[in-house]
């Protein structure tokens, strides 16, 4: 499946009041380009921090679903966070791995471990209670609702096609301004 298709599935299935965190680079761009209505926030450097950021947000906002969309390169930077998430076990946290075995934004260099790395098994082994893996759009259409209905934390691996993901010119808001705008919309203050 293409990234745009995966993003569209998630956008259409996600409750309107859910909060979305995306990782640096391709995942965040693809999510934004799907024009989601959800309150969303793109993590930035360093790679590997978005899962713990989503965990902190989920703990602080336990009444709302928090969805993290992060590429496999982001996850590979910090697999230990799976243990942290499993230990904290926030019921409202949902995790998506966009899996294509390469650092998309950085030019497509392969991930360590190659295509054989099983992120769903890693998550299950860490203690994440619900895991799934979709290699086709049909499988994803079946599993995305299950991910969102599962008792969290839950993790779904979505295999996406390698696609060019060139850097784009920066938008009008720096990260601290994006952070302020996110908090203004969520909390009413920055």
């Amino acid at each position: 499946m293409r990234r745009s298709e995966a993003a569209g599935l998630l956008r259409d299935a996600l409750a309107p009041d859910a909060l979305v965190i995306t990782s640096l680079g391709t995942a965040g761009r693809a999510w934004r380009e799907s024009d989601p209505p959800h309150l969303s926030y793109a993590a930035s450097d360093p790679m590997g921090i978005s899962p713990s950021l989503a965990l902190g947000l989920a703990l602080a906002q336990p009444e709302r679903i928090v969805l993290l969309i992060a590429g496999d390169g982001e996850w590979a930077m910090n697999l230990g966070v799976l243990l942290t998430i499993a230990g904290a076990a926030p019921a409202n946290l949902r995790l998506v791995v966009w899996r294509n075995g390469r650092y998309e934004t950085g030019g497509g260099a392969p991930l360590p471990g190659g295509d054989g790395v099983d992120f769903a098994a890693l998550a299950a082994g860490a203690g994440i209670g619900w895991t799934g893996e979709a290699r086709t759009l049909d499988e994803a259409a079946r599993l995305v609702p299950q991910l969102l209905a599962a008792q969290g934390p839950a993790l779904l691996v979505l295999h996406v096609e390698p696609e060019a993901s060139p850097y784009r010119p920066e938008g009008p808001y720096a990260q601290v301004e994006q952070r302020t705008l996110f908090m203004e919309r969520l909390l009413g203050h920055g």
Partner: protein
Amino acid sequence: MDAAAQRTAALLREADITIAATLPDQWLGGVIGALDAEPAIRLVRVTREDDGVGICAGAYLGGQGAVLVCQSAGLLLSANALAGYALHHQTPFLVLAALRGGHDDGYYYQTYKHRVITPVLDALGLPHHTLRTPDDLSIIPDAARQGWLSRRPVVLLAHRDALRDAPEAGR
């Protein structure tokens, strides 16, 4: 549970801290135990200090105050997360770190930590305060406010005696 640890937890609660991300250290066991026993604070055990930075930043995004409790070496490890995320996004939280490797430490392998930690924090631009006795713990609410006002993490570097009621006879 000793009084210094309980007081630390009480002061963090007074500072509106509701989430604590922790990593173990020999000196911090009492504090972490007190935080675990404090019903108003959600304790999260993390595998790496970077995760603690992320959790504290995410908590702030969601309107909650947070503290990272770790050894000073953890701040060295997470320098990129502190600079690239917390400082770049102007995200306040507290860090309570055991200041290992000084006069009150008894291990060769700890010594480098004391030597490099404050220059690294200064290079990052992170405000830091040194706690020498349990009385110094009273800075916690003010330090949290300093962080909130300046929109950056504030680090409390705790000597061994700041984290316990009475020094032991031997080390």
